[in-house]
């Protein structure tokens, strides 16, 4: 059931991205010879499309904002309790610090979200659109997987630490 919900959520995001990822080069209207990602500036409303929020549940959602030459995807990941919260923050901060290596990752997440991507027309010229969408969806699945595996490793190690310590007394 949970896997099915995840599939539906990811399929919805994938379809939205396929529609939204139609980017073209657009020199800045306001400053000569500048070329900026319009979705970051948000100064000219005619260049921006309606943003879409896809919610998996109250805690998890995905915001997709599009403009003529750039696309911004922001994710909010589930954080149920303290340990999960800190593992998620640690992992996502680890990824964001390496944003340069990822190229399409934003160094700081958008306000209210945990991690953000910024895709520009230049990225679309370098990389195949389908593969790029595959990457984003795989990224989201990987975040989920990694955090649950980190949680599991902490619990397993905790159990082992306790058992070995107590065994000494027998």
């Amino acid at each position: 059931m949970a896997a099915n919900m995840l599939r539906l959520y990811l399929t919805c995001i994938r379809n939205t991205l396929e529609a939204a990822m139609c980017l073209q080069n657009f020199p800045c209207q306001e400053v000569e010879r500048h070329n900026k990602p319009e979705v970051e500036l948000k100064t000219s409303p005619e260049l921006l499309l309606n943003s879409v929020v896809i919610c998996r549940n109250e805690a998890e959602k995905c915001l997709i904002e599009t403009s003529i030459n750039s696309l911004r995807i922001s994710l909010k990941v589930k954080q149920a309790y303290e340990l999960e919260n800190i593992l998620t923050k640690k992992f996502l901060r680890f990824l964001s610090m390496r944003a340069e290596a990822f190229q399409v990752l934003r160094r700081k997440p958008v306000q209210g979200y945990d991690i953000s991507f910024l895709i520009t027309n230049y990225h679309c010229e370098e990389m195949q659109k389908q593969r790029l969408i595959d990457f984003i969806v795989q990224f989201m699945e990987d975040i989920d997987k990694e955090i649950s595996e980190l949680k599991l490793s902490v619990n397993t190690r905790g159990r082992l630490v306790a058992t070995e310590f107590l065994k000494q007394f027998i």
Partner: protein
Amino acid sequence: MILLQSPSKYLLQILTTRLENLDKGVELDSYWIEFNDVRYHVQASMKNPNLLFLSVSLPPPPPETVSFGGLPPGAIEAIKAAYGVVAQILDPPRDGFSLTLKLNLSKLPPDEEHKHGVLTKIASVREVVLGAPLRVFLKQLASRTVASDIDKVVALVHRPMESFFLIPQVEKVTVVFPMRFKDSIDILLATSFLKEFVDARRTAGLNNAPPCSWSPSPPPELKGAPPEALSSNAGFVSFVIFPRHVEGRKLDRTVWSLSTFHAYVSYHVKCSEGFMHTRMRRRVESLIQALDGAKPDYEKAVKATQNRSFKRLSLKDGRSSLKSFS
């Protein structure tokens, strides 16, 4: 290595190497620190290859603990009992240290097994000295004698300016650790590990292990203790030690496990964080590879390296071409 070992590997290696190379004696002057709270110093000279000076600095005790002249109560008797004539306590100890022992390697027992046993005991100097007061209480428990401090809260030092508490009774001794960590992530990981102790004892058939409990606030047994000593950010862990846990050979192991409990938890918290970092790095690499797969040039580059072929030239080819000329 899951459990912390009592004899310090480094110290044991220094001692055995020294013993094996007595005639080739070299100058030795080494400082090191264990578990972030106890400092050691070993010094030996070529003039007297049989003599070794071992200095130990113990963590400074907080005000609520009892100590006699820098050493924990019962330490001097424990040293004499463990080492006999091999070690001599130097008074005053070396500058900056709480205890200096003059070890005379010529006074070791002649047969190999006993010799190694004494060297191992010397390497466990931390357990002997720092664990001495705990040992006194647990020995009284084992022999079921009535202690003078019965039903009172006793504070013993185990880390710099931090103590843990004992409530000795005739039939059992309750040991309570207020757990403190500096880093916020350490606190969370440690709390989740400590909570596991209660669950671990219930499962896995550990019924004979000491009953343990964890609570975020000081347990009722600690009513008589001073409030400054009762601050903690990772809760309080209590163990109830019964005579069966301290009879015979188990006494030494129990003393070691309890006196290094905080170091044990801290060690595993750090290992856990290191493991998480390794996992995250691996995940980043796999994601970057997936991203590279999105670039069409990547595939072309991969195919190009696979299709390159070279014709191997050998000397025979060279000679045959020469022959054709001559």
